[in-house]
């Protein structure tokens, strides 16, 4: 197993270097950040000075080399816009994004599994049909559109919940968390639900499909024949077996939640790293864009590795080995 993990990590490092290279060179072809920052009444000498200060006067290869050498030491460059360490900026905003993503994940499980179970157990009932139609809607509704509508309805028309921002936070070991205050929770509700919507639908469908298949399996038939109560069959035998795929998928989907938070954060002005990415793209803050990508690829590598390991623990039939053979 350790050989497997080591190999995976090595491959991942390779991937990260390749990604960094593609993005670094690609992003240098878009626009000229100097003209984003200088005020138009500056003279040429000042503009040249800015170009030098941002290190953009050097040839691109040299810039890449400088980036790589300091990246190895954990320094992913300095934001053009903020003048601070790009990695620092991202880490600073990461707790907000992770909090949002975890809340969405929680919502997806809490709402998705019971609804999916119901739809799977009683596939022909009216309620189930409604649930499934709702899940198609959840899949189809673009996140950004739902977000706008949520602000419209809950914040503006009804005035129940705040429209944007993060609200009060509590410091826990130096990390700011908002779910521990009422104000924070109120701010969290809409964006978390917005982000969760897609995943709720996904969990509903996974659970339903799993339930329907499992109900045809011999072990359920056997349990039924043995006269076990329906609750026990569903609660123990069924749930245990359908949880494995749900857990795996949700684990993998956590990364996609982090990625999709870009959209939600932009609409709800949630101060996370997704909003930072969009703003950095708009302002051509190249170091932050590159650093974000490196971070997120790293995050994904870790998540995938964890999911594989957990999966193997949950299901002893799965052996950790390189797939594809």
């Amino acid at each position, binding site marked *: 197993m350790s050989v497997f993990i080591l190999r995976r990590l090595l491959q991942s490092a390779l991937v990260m270097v390749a990604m960094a290279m593609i993005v670094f060179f690609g992003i240098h072809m878009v626009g000229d950040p100097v003209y984003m920052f200088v005020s138009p*009444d500056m003279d040429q000498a000042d503009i040249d000075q800015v170009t030098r200060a941002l290190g953009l006067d050097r040839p691109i290869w040299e810039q890449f080399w400088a980036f790589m050498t300091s990246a190895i030491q954990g320094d992913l460059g300095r934001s053009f816009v903020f003048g601070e360490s790009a990695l620092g900026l991202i880490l600073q905003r990461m707790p907000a994004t992770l909090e949002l993503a975890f809340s969405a994940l929680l919502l997806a499980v809490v709402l998705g599994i019971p609804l999916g179970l119901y739809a799977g157990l009683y596939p022909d009932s009216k309620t189930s049909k409604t649930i499934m139609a709702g899940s198609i809607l959840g899949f189809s509704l673009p996140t950004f559109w739902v977000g706008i509508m949520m602000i419209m309805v809950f914040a503006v*028309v009804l005035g129940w919940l705040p*429209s944007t*921002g993060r609200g009060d936070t509590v410091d826990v070991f130096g990390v700011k968390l908002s779910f521990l205050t009422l104000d924070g929770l109120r701010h969290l509700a809409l964006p978390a639900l917005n982000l969760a919507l897609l995943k709720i639908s996904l969990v509903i469908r996974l659970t339903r499909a799993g339930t329907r298949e499992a109900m045809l399996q011999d072990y359920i038939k056997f349990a039924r024949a043995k006269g076990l109560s329906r609750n026990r069959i569903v609660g123990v035998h069924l749930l245990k077996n359908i949880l494995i795929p749900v857990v795996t998928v949700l684990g993998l989907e956590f990364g996609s939640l982090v990625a999709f938070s870009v959209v939600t954060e932009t609409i709800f*002005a949630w101060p996370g790293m997704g909003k930072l990415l969009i703003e950095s793209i708009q302002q051509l803050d190249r170091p932050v864009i590159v650093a974000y990508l490196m971070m997120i690829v790293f995050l994904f590598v870790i998540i995938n590795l964890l999911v594989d390991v957990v999966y193997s623990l949950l299901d002893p039939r799965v052996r950790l080995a390189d797939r594809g053979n």
Partner: protein
Amino acid sequence: MKSIKAPLVRAVFYAACSTVALAGTAAAEDITIGVASEATSVDPHFHNLGPNNQLGFMIFDRLANPDERQNFKPGLAVSWEPVNPTTWEFKLREGVTFHDGTAFNADDVICTFERAPEVPNSPASFSTYIKGKTFEKIDDYTVHVKTEEPYPLMVNDLGNIAIISDEGGCNGTTEEFNSGVASAGTGPFKFVEYVPGDRIVLEGNDDYWGDKPTWDTVTIKPIKSGPSRVAALLAGDVDVIGGVPTTDIETLKARDDVTLSQGVSNRVIYLHIDQFRENSPFVKANGGGDIKNPLMDQKVRLAISKAISRELIRDRVMEGLSIPAGQLLPEGFFGVSENLEPETYDPEAAKALLAEAGLPDGFELTIHGPNDRYVNDAKIVEGIAQMLNRVGIKAQVETLPRSVYFSRASRGADGLPEFSLILVGWGAGSGEASSPLRALIATNNPDKGMGTANRGRYSNPDVDAVIEEALSEVDDAKRQDLLAKATEMAIADLAIIPIHYQVNTWASRKGLSYIPRTDEYTVAYGVVKD
């Protein structure tokens, strides 16, 4: 309309409830301000950028502080005057202390002007305002500033620079400003906390030398999207917002729980015209063939100006929030001409002029503009293109995000401005007419800092001479006349085609209002209780 009214009435009700609740729980002396752009740093010298200057206005003082009309009022200097043609004397205010308790004196001024142009990693420093000047401490409360040539705009330049403390600030890094270690100023508000992306918190400085601040705690929240900012105000999350989108003003006006404050800005929205290339890249003959650049013909430029109904743009695009422009700055600013009126809309005359210029059937043209920079920029460009089509100029539109627009508009692949006809805006940072004249009208000469934003490359040596003369004329009355004269000459040449001056809107909950500023900033001391 009926269906939408019902929820709105309910919204008023709920918003009213939440306002009452707010007044009941929180102290009335706290306000939350929603702003469009976030300051990127608390360090006032890190980046010469609107949102950063806006923040700096609250925490720091300048030698002279610009008021809401950008007139310079005594700040940390109580008076200034030229003692000889090349030396200005600033008398400093006594008895002022920084937020960290240290006393203010000439040493702080000297170290500020040493640090401001030299901040590491600065994406655009304040060196423009400081270069060519030498600073000398005469005594603790007197400073002399010397230049090579007579320089009338001394206060306008130095009024841009926030004064920091030589004990804490001058050696501070940008990070130390952001964390609060180095960020002591002398301004009406003290820095408390900076949570990037979320909020900046300030508290009132009870020892302020000027008018005592009304607010105990000020929370500034960046909310980038206009509609979200309005939603936040209506939901009671913020008390005041700046940059109210024109689209929402009609609705907000109809509500009695919201107060609107409006004022004209120093920003002129105008067209820059390629008048230096025989072959302009985005001008084509009808059918797409090459054509000698018709924009070089003054008649054609006049035809374009006459084809544009500035009133229609004001009424239908800006929803009434613009003032048709005939020159570079609205009336009331120093250096504007009293003889210039906006061009009158006359499509028939425009067609006649085109015919006179030998182009009775017009030509093809692509107009470029930004789509995320000025109020309704993309819609203005589209409106202009529609009107040009009405007089026979087959205009197409391409709008670009500012991240690519401005670099291409200034310097395309060959180092020259890339477009033929562009929509741009210019805000006179100095609060008088030399700023746009120098940057937009003067012949492009980046080494001398002239015509730096002259993206049409208009060039008239006679106009240049008048501008140069104005820039070294210390006598205010004479300078006013010279600036007005240069403006009149440039407008007569159609160096640029002014469209309108932006009118900015702030909205606040009932009981508050905002003193509109021509520099478009939203500052806490501008929020007043009714």
